[in-house]
């Protein structure tokens, strides 16, 4: 395929669109990590092969020379977000979205295209109403979102630079490099009101400006792709689904601050994202979009890709920089801030993936457009990873100001019980912001969500992980889970975090194991306070949030654990009372014989009893009982 120098953006776009026009259809298969794990590639292969067998020209690559008409273009996209419903397959211009596609369905799909009648059983069905949805337009999960940053993730092929350009990619970067001054670029981002999407919410334009005004010389742009929050995969999806958007954002930032070198730091746990970003860099270099004299502007920009080595704390700015410098990822006190003294002591901007991916959109559509979305202090949209006890788990994007109710019930489709049924009353809480965040309860359902609003509620947007929890969740266990995570990931440098979170975990263990005393909760609160204000970096400062937040909203649960040694949600194993239901027990004595410590007593054919004090909760009796009479173990 002949290539025009991609820096001639108009020509590339024209070539691509013309070549694309020759296809009657476009078939896109979601190839995000989730769908790949569920066999998306097998579907891809099957579709390609079976179409060929039927004599249908289904290409997987654009051939610029071949001017014949073809039946369809088959490509792979990044994560489309509807992860539970994958593998996903969409057909345009028909506007069809098929869910849960297997290689065995491919034949029917092809026939459906030929006949014009979609395969109904593969279409999405709304669980509550049974309504069958043809495509993105009528699926509530999608219809209720405003996919802006994620718009291209899920349609374009993330490994195809030309398609990215055809959809408008790199035009904004060219504008920044050739038609705007560095100050103007910073100004535009500042006016748009873009705030950091990694959790800090710091105004991006201000960060860029602070770095821009540092003395000229070596400066760096670093993309923080070390998304380590458990339950968050927004950045992964953007890096997998639209890596060029991130690179373009970095290019614009480099122009704004005067940098000629950048790093993309990606967690090694995201091998697909690493591969896609590396390929994007390589393709951009080959096309002259990275390197020297970009767009003839005289400016240079080079990007290195570095893989993280498994340390959540490296998501913290200064720790990330330490890691790039070949050292342990231990944060440094701020000030000085990276804007003044960052990588190798030089002025550096570190931005989150989503923040950077928003930048080209802002430059292309204007600050006013961006301001028109979201709220006054938090313009724009936010991606969230919606997971937990909710009907539609996946990756979503909504404007700031959307309410929790809209997200959980409209987009998310409602709260699920343990048995999977959707039940509105099952809603207990939503954990937002991962291990640094807090929880929101029923009283927060209708409050508009944005940076400041959430802070006022004692929570934070964080990176955007949203975990929905039903009534069967023990909030103390939730706090303990996050504390375990933070403790494991603490770098160990400062005393409050290293020792404080360790001792907080000890206390939480005491509470869930039934060893707590009256002194435990006040001590836990005092520790939490001190860790929060005394820690050196964001990890430590936010580590107590889950505890403080759950204590605030669910204090009665804690007190039940402490005072009555009972877990109201029946989740804490040590606090359950083992008992045999006399109504169900047939007195077969099997359980008593299996018990290794002789805790079960009873006469033959009479209901048996368990001595809770002796019981070691091994579960042998439960396994033995054919009548399901034993509970609390």
């Amino acid at each position, binding site marked *: 395929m002949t290539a025009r120098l991609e820096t001639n953006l108009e020509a590339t776009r024209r070539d691509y669109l013309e070549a694309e026009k020759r296809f009657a259809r476009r078939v896109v298969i979601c190839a995000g990590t989730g769908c790949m794990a569920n066999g998306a590639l097998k579907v891809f292969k099957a579709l390609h092969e079976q179409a060929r067998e039927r004599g249908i020209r289904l290409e997987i690559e654009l051939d610029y020379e071949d001017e014949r008409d073809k039946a369809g273009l088959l490509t792979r996209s990044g994560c489309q977000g509807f992860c539970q419903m994958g593998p996903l397959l969409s057909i345009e211009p028909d506007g069809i979205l098929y869910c849960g596609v297997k290689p065995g369905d491919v034949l029917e799909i092809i026939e459906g295209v030929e006949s014009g009648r979609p395969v109904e059983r593969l279409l999405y069905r709304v669980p509550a109403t049974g309504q069958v949805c043809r495509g993105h337009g009528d699926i509530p999960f999608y219809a209720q979102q405003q996919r802006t940053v994620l718009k291209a993730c899920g349609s374009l092929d993330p490994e195809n630079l030309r398609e990215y350009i055809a959809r408008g990619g790199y035009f904004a970067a060219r504008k920044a490099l050739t038609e705007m001054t560095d100050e103007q670029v910073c100004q535009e981002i500042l006016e748009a009101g873009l705030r950091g999407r990694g959790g800090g919410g710091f105004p991006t334009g201000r960060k860029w400006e602070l770095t821009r005004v540092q003395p000229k010389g070596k400066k760096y742009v670093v993309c923080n792709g070390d998304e380590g929050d458990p339950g968050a995969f927004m950045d992964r999806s953007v890096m997998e689904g639209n890596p060029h958007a991130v690179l373009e954002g970095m290019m614009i930032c480099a122009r704004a601050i005067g940098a000629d070198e950048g790093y993309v730091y990606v967690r090694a746990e995201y091998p697909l994202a690493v591969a896609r970003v590396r390929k994007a860099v390589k393709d951009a270099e080959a096309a002259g979009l990275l390197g020297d004299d970009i767009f003839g502007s005289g400016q240079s920009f080079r990007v290195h890709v570095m893989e993280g080595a498994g340390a959540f704390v490296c998501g913290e700015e200064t720790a990330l920089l330490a890691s790039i410098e070949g050292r342990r990822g231990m944060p440094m*006190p701020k000030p000085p801030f990276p804007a003044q003294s960052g990588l190798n002591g030089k002025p550096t901007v570190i931005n989150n993936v989503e923040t950077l991916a928003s930048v080209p959109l802002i430059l292309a559509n204007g600050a006013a457009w961006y301001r028109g979305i979201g709220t006054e202090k938090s313009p724009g949209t936010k991606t969230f990873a919606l997971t937990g006890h909710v009907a539609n788990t996946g990756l979503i994007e909504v404007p700031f100001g959307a309410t929790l109710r809209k997200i959980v019930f409209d987009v998310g489709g409602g709260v699920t019980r343990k048995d999977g049924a959707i039940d509105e009353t099952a809603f207990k809480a939503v954990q937002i912001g991962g291990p640094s965040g807090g929880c929101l309860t029923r009283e927060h359902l209708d409050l508009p969500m944005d940076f400041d609003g959430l802070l006022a509620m004692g929570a934070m947007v964080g990176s955007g992980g949203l975990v929905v929890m039903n009534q069967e969740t023990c909030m103390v266990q939730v706090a303990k889970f996050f504390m375990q995570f933070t*403790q494991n990931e603490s770098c*160990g440098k*400062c*005393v409050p975090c290293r020792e404080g979170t360790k001792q907080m975990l000890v206390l939480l263990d005491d509470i869930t194991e039934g060893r707590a005393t009256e002194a435990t909760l006040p001590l836990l609160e*005092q520790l939490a306070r*001190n860790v929060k*204000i005394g*820690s050196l970096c964001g990890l430590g400062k936010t580590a107590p949030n889950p505890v403080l937040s759950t204590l605030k909203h669910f204090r009665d649960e804690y007190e039940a654990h402490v005072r009555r040694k009972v877990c109201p949600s029946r989740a804490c194993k040590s606090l359950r009372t083992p008992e045999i239901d006399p109504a169900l027990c047939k007195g077969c004595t099997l359980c008593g014989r299996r018990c290794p410590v002789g805790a079960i007593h009873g006469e033959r054919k009479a209901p048996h009893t368990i001595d809770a004090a002796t019981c070691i909760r091994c579960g042998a009796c439960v396994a033995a009982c054919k009548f399901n009479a034993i509970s609390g173990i």
Partner: protein
Amino acid sequence: MTREKSLTIDGFRVEIDGERNLLDVIRKAHIELPTFCYHSELSVYGACRLCMVEVEGRGLVTACTTAPEPGMTVKTQTATVRELRKTNIELLLASGNHDCPTCGKSGSCKLQSLAERLGVTEVRFKAPVEEKPLDLTSPGLVRDPNKCVLCGDCVRFCSEIQGIGVLDFTHRGSRSQVSPAFGKGLFDVDCVGCGQCAAVCPVGAILVKSEVERVYAALQDPAKTVVVQVAPAVRAAIGESFGAADDTFTMGRIVSALRRLGFDRVYDTSFTADLTIWEEATEFVTRKRNGGKLPLFTSCCPAWIKMAEHDFPEILGNISTCRSPQQMFGSLAKEILPGELGLRREDLVVVSVMPCTAKKFEAGRDEFAVDGNPDVDVVLTTQELARMIQDAGLQFPELPVDRLDQPFGTKTGAGVIFANSGGVTEAVIRYAAGDLGQDHPVIEEVRSEKNRRELTAATPSGEIKMAVVHGLARARELVREIEAGESSVEFVEVMACPGGCIGGAGQPVTHSSKVRQRRTRVIRDVDTTLDVHCSQQNHVVKELYQDRLGSPNGAEAHRLLHTHYHSRKRIAGDGITLSDVTGEPKIPVSVCIGTACHLRGAQDLLKDVLRHVEQQDLSDRFEIKATFCMESCDRGPTVRVNGHVLRKATFEMVRDTLASAVGGTLPVLEARDECVHA
């Protein structure tokens, strides 16, 4: 005081005058904030969080990392800050084994004193049950990870001031530990024993190893005669342990105390310091005249020697072959005293009191023993002597002043000033050019506090370009410059400890540079009050040459007073096996890839050897290993085949040797490490 250049602390205005952090400004308000990890000579760490203060508009900040700004309103005693400090201390007390009464640091421990100062009366948290093992590999130091508070001072000192980096943080979070590489012991890696890690440690995680019991045993043994030599630096500091830092009669009291403890003879290491000057100055002049190896490096600092043996084996030939004053003393004492006192050598016990932990390592070196009997039997640090004095209940400041024994108690001021950085150099200048007086610019430069100074001394026999360094990082820099041909110095004095031996790790614990400055002054005062100041005026030394030694650097002097050095491995461990180990026994081949050999192209040699073996289809005849250090570092690359060591090995040499081995004409030798003679 202008408003522009001041800030307020707890409501009181304080002027800013170029201080680099709030901590120093707050000191001007007569407030000493609690600190752990902050050390004024090391990079800022900001981890202990004890020095937090409240700054209006900024919230809580650490005073050690915050630059003072005019107009700041700082509060140091708010309820929040107080609770934070107490909680931090409480957490630290629960982080390991902090049982004070049984700890060697009790009484000089920062954690202990802060707990007391901040009123921490209970520890409500659980301490870990697991006990981490102690590191006892170093002759001079004991490392106890159970007491470590992870302040990082030792890590930063070893890396920044000594330029070695033996210790580092390992693992993460609450499993973090400070340890040498791979969790090995200090002396299994290239620790030089300077002990500054112990000196900066605020708690008892690294302590001087105590050998007082061995001394008690000797003192109690009726068959033994125990003599002791006291280093100059000790008298400048031991008074600090008894609240008598400014006592001018300290040396006399030390003698008194030692006699009361039961030592049979009390001598002064300053005597052999004078002797060292005779030997070393003569050595220098000889080299200069005969085109010998220059520059000459001093050899009295054992930490410096060990570092050179690990890292700079190629300059071992430049180091003076003179033993240190401690070892010269031991050698002479064991040679002369048995005859004079009518004893056997084995019944004479020589103890030295030193400011230095590395001296314990030095005394144990193989070269400093005759038929297995060491010249110096036990080294006590100043700290240990103070303990013995306290143990005996002696009221040190009130002891009567006593005199040293002769003849080894005679010294000049030149011998005493060895205790200061620049002292050896000044003593050499006095020997060569006479006593120039304190105001002489050369003497001013020699006495400056800078950790590296260079000067040119004019002597009757010509000019000498000299350099003085303290802190091993400076020494490394200078050695590299010399090797690169960028320096023309002819004489270099190297001391590992800040300010020289007065700052040794065996001295009483202090965290104040003012204390070091005072000790330096005390040494100079002692020098001033003595009758003679130049080593050539030590009449006992003169007689010693006449009666026994002959002439400086002569055969007898060499036998008793000189030594040699040898290169050392940097890290214990196996090599990397590069062959299939199964099958028939194979001819062993080792290629050294330690630093020095590496720098001489060992990697390429190894690649060539591997390729050759493969091309000749001999892979199954040889067991090839890449090893760390066959300790022939100045003659690398080094390859060993069947036990035969090839030095300055070329590929051709190795190829031919391999051929002989295959052909059966190369007999197997027991592998031995050989010494490099100076």
